[in-house]
C-alpha cells in the first residue's frame, strides 16, 4: 500500500454556505453565516431551532446528469448538483463514464428512509394510498440513483452510519480502490432538512434555539442543516493515465466504536482517539496543519472532541468547525467537511469558527476566531455519531 492510495481530482459542495465550493468558501472566509427560520418544516413544538437551508431550487445544476422519469428527492438533487461541480473540476464528462468501473459511495440518513408522512397518514386511515411515495423512495436511494443514472459498472453503497456517514463513504471508496474493486469512485454524502430528524433531535433535547456555537462556553446544542459534498476519487495509476490534476490525496482513514452508549460519546473519547491514531498511521501528530472538527455545538460532543484532539495533538493545535456555516447536515456532514478540509489545504487558510466567541476550558482547544493561515501538508477531518461511531480522515496536499 502506498502512502496515499487514492487521489482526489474533483470536489463539489452544495449547502447553506453556498451553491458551490467557491461561493461557500467565499462566504465562510468572509465570516458570513446564514441560519434561518424552520418555518418550512411546520414543526409544532416548543423548542424551535434555526436551520441552515440549502440554496433555492434554481441553483440545482443537474440537467445533464439526471433522468426526468421519476421525481427526485432533495437529497438526490443536492448530491447531483455537487457531483456536477466535482466532475467538471476533475475534467470528466458524465457521458464518458458510462460502463466504466466506477464505484459510488454515499452517506445519508434521511435519503434512505421511507418517512413520507402524507402517504403514511393515508395508509393508517385505510385510504389505500397509491405507491408513488414508495416508488420515489425506491428510486432515490442516493448511491443507486447516481450509479443507475450515469450507467456505471462498479460497486455501490449507501451508508447510514448516522453522523459519520459522509466520511465513512469516503473511507469505503478508498477501500474499494485499494482492493481493485473499481478504478474511480464518486464518494460523499447528502441529506435534506426533514421533520423527522428535526423532531427527533428536539426530543433528545440537543438542539439550540439560537445559532449554534461550536466549542463555545455557552454552547447549548446543534442546528440542523442540509446539503451535499462530493469527491471524485481515483487510484494514482488511473489519475496518471488520464492526466488528471491531483488536488489532494487521501492519506489515512480510521474508524472505531466506543461501545459506551447508544447516543452519547465516550467521555474520554476512547474511540475517537483510536480512530485518529489509526488515520495517522504513517505520520506523526505534529505534521498536521489543522483539524476540521465535527463541532456540533452540543455539550458532550465538543467537550469530548476538543479534549481528545488536545490530548493527541496538543492544546495549540489549529482547529476550525464549519457547522456555524452549514448547520449539522447529518449524513452529509463528513463529506462536506472533507471538501472544506481539502480546500483549506489548497488555499493555505481556514475560516473563523462561526458562532464561537468564548473558550470553554473543558474543550481544552480554542478554535479559530478569524481567517487563519495554515501550514503543513496534512489536515484531518473528524466525525462522531450516534451509537459511538468515530471516524477520522487524513488528507494530504498533492505536490
Amino acid at each position, binding site marked *: 500500500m502506498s502512502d496515499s492510495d487514492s487521489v482526489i481530482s474533483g470536489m463539489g459542495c452544495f449547502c447553506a454556505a453556498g451553491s458551490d465550493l467557491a461561493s461557500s468558501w467565499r462566504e465562510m472566509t468572509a465570516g458570513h453565516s446564514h441560519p434561518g427560520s424552520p418555518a418550512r418544516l411546520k414543526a409544532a413544538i416548543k423548542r424551535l431551532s434555526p436551520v441552515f437551508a440549502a440554496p433555492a431550487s434554481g441553483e440545482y445544476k443537474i440537467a445533464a446528469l439526471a433522468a426526468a422519469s421519476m421525481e427526485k428527492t432533495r437529497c438526490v438533487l443536492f448530491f447531483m448538483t455537487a457531483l456536477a461541480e466535482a466532475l467538471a473540476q476533475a475534467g470528466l464528462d458524465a457521458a464518458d463514464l458510462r460502463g466504466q468501473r466506477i464505484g459510488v459511495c454515499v452517506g445519508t440518513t434521511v435519503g434512505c428512509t421511507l418517512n413520507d408522512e402524507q402517504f403514511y397518514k393515508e395508509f393508517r386511515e385505510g385510504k389505500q394510498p397509491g405507491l408513488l411515495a414508495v416508488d420515489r423512495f425506491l428510486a432515490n436511494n442516493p448511491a443507486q440513483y447516481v450509479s443507475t443514472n450515469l450507467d456505471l459498472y462498479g460497486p455501490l453503497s449507501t451508508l447510514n452510519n448516522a453522523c459519520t456517514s459522509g466520511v465513512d463513504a469516503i473511507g469505503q471508496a478508498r477501500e474499494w480502490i485499494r482492493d481493485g474493486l473499481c478504478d474511480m469512485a464518486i464518494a460523499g454524502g447528502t441529506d435534506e432538512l426533514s421533520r423527522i430528524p428535526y423532531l427527533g433531535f428536539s426530543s433528545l433535547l440537543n438542539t439550540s434555539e439560537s445559532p449554534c456555537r461550536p466549542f463555545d462556553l455557552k454552547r447549548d446544542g446543534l442546528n440542523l442543516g442540509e446539503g451535499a459534498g462530493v469527491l471524485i476519487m481515483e487510484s494514482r495509476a488511473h489519475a496518471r493515465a488520464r492526466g488528471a490534476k491531483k488536488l489532494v490525496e487521501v492519506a489515512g482513514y480510521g474508524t472505531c*466504536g466506543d461501545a459506551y452508549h447508544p447516543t452519547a460519546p465516550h467521555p474520554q473519547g476512547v474511540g475517537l482517539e483510536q480512530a485518529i491514531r489509526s488515520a495517522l498511521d504513517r505520520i506523526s501528530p505534529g505534521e498536521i496543519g489543522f483539524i476540521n472538527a465535527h463541532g456540533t455545538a452540543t455539550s458532550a460532543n465538543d467537550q469530548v472532541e476538543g479534549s481528545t484532539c488536545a490530548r493527541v495533538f496538543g492544546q495549540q493545535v489549529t482547529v476550525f468547525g464549519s457547522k456555524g456555516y452549514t448547520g449539522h447536515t447529518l449524513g452529509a456532514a463528513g463529506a462536506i467537511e472533507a471538501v472544506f478540509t481539502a480546500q483549506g489545504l489548497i488555499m493555505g487558510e481556514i475560516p473563523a469558527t462561526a458562532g464561537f466567541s468564548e473558550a470553554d476550558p473543558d474543550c481544552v482547544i480554542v478554535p479559530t476566531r478569524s481567517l487563519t493561515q495554515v501550514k503543513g501538508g496534512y489536515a484531518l477531518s473528524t466525525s462522531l455519531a450516534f451509537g459511538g461511531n468515530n471516524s477520522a480522515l487524513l488528507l494530504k496536499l498533492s505536490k
Partner: protein
Amino acid sequence: MTQVKITGIGPVMACGQGAAALQAALEKGGPVDNYRVAEPGLDEFVPAKQSRRMDKFTRMAVLAACLALKDAGVEADAKFKSETGVVFGSALGPQGSSFSFLDGIMDGGDNCASSFLFTNSVHSTAAAQVALTLGIRGPMRTVTAFSHTAGVAFASALSWITSRLTSRVLVILTEETSAVQQYGAARKGASGPIRPLGKGCSYVPGEGCVAFMLEASSQGYCAFRHLDPCLRVEAAVERSADCDMLFSAAAGRADEFATYCRLGSGQTPYAAYSPLYGSLYAGMGFELAIAALSLKRQFIFPVPGVSAGAKSSKHPMSGDSLLRKVAIAAVTGPDRIAYAELGI
C-alpha cells in the same frame, strides 16, 4: 492473500434461531407460510435492562450476532473487543421504529416525538447495540443499498481483515417487514407462494437476520474464494462454470426474472432457497449461510419447490455430495450481479 473463513453463523428466521435450527428447516425442506420472526428472546445473552431499550429490528441483530459468536466458539474477551469490527447491512432498515415514530407524532402531535423511537429508527443503531452488547470497539459500518447490501457488506469485511485493520468481522444482515411493506407488495400484485424462478410476481416480503463471524483462520465452515459486488451476468455465468453449485437469491420479483434466467443459463446446478426465508433484498446473505452449511455438511439440502424425482430439473438433487467450491449470486440490476464464491 489472507484466507478469510466463515467460522460461525447466527440465523434468526421464522423457521428457527441458530445454525442447528436452520439446518433442521433445510432438511425438512419446502416453503413456509409465515415469514414473520417471533419476538427474539435475548435472555441468554443480554440483561433485560439493556434489551428493553431495543426494538425488534435491533433484537434480531443482537441475537444473531450472539449466536454467530457462540457458533464460532469465540469468547468476547479483551482481545476480541479490540480486534473485531461490525459490518451491518439492511436494505430497508428498522421499519417498525420508523413507522412507530410517525404514529407518535400523528397521534399525539409533534411534541410527542419519541426520543427512544427516533434513536431506534436510525439504521446504524442496531450495529451500535451489537457493539455495546459485546463490547466491540473496532470499526463499525452500516450499509443500506437494496439488493447491493449483502455484497458490499461482505466486501467491507473482507477488506478490513485482509488489510489487517481487524482480525475478525461480524457481518450482520437484517430485514424487518411492516404492514406498509405488506400493503405495497399486495398493491404490486405479489401473490405468493414464492416461486424463485417463476415468471410472475410471486414475492412475499420476508423478515429475519443472519450474522457471520469472519476470521483469518484455518478452521471454520468454509473460506471466501472470491467476492465481486458488481459483475456482469455473463461474467458470473462464466466464473460459476467450475463451481459445484450456484446458490441464487432469486425470490419471485418479476423485474429480476429475466436476469436470473440468464444467470442460471450455464451448466452449474442451480438452487434458490428463498421460499424458506422470504423475499429479501439482502437475500444473498441468507443464501450464503445456506451455502456455508452445505459445504460444511457436504450435503445438498432439498431445494424448496423441487420434488425428489424431478431429474430433468437443473436444480441439484438433495443428498450427500462432494462440494468443493460453490457460487452465490444476487441480481442487483439489469446486467449486474453481486457474486461470491465459497470453498472448503
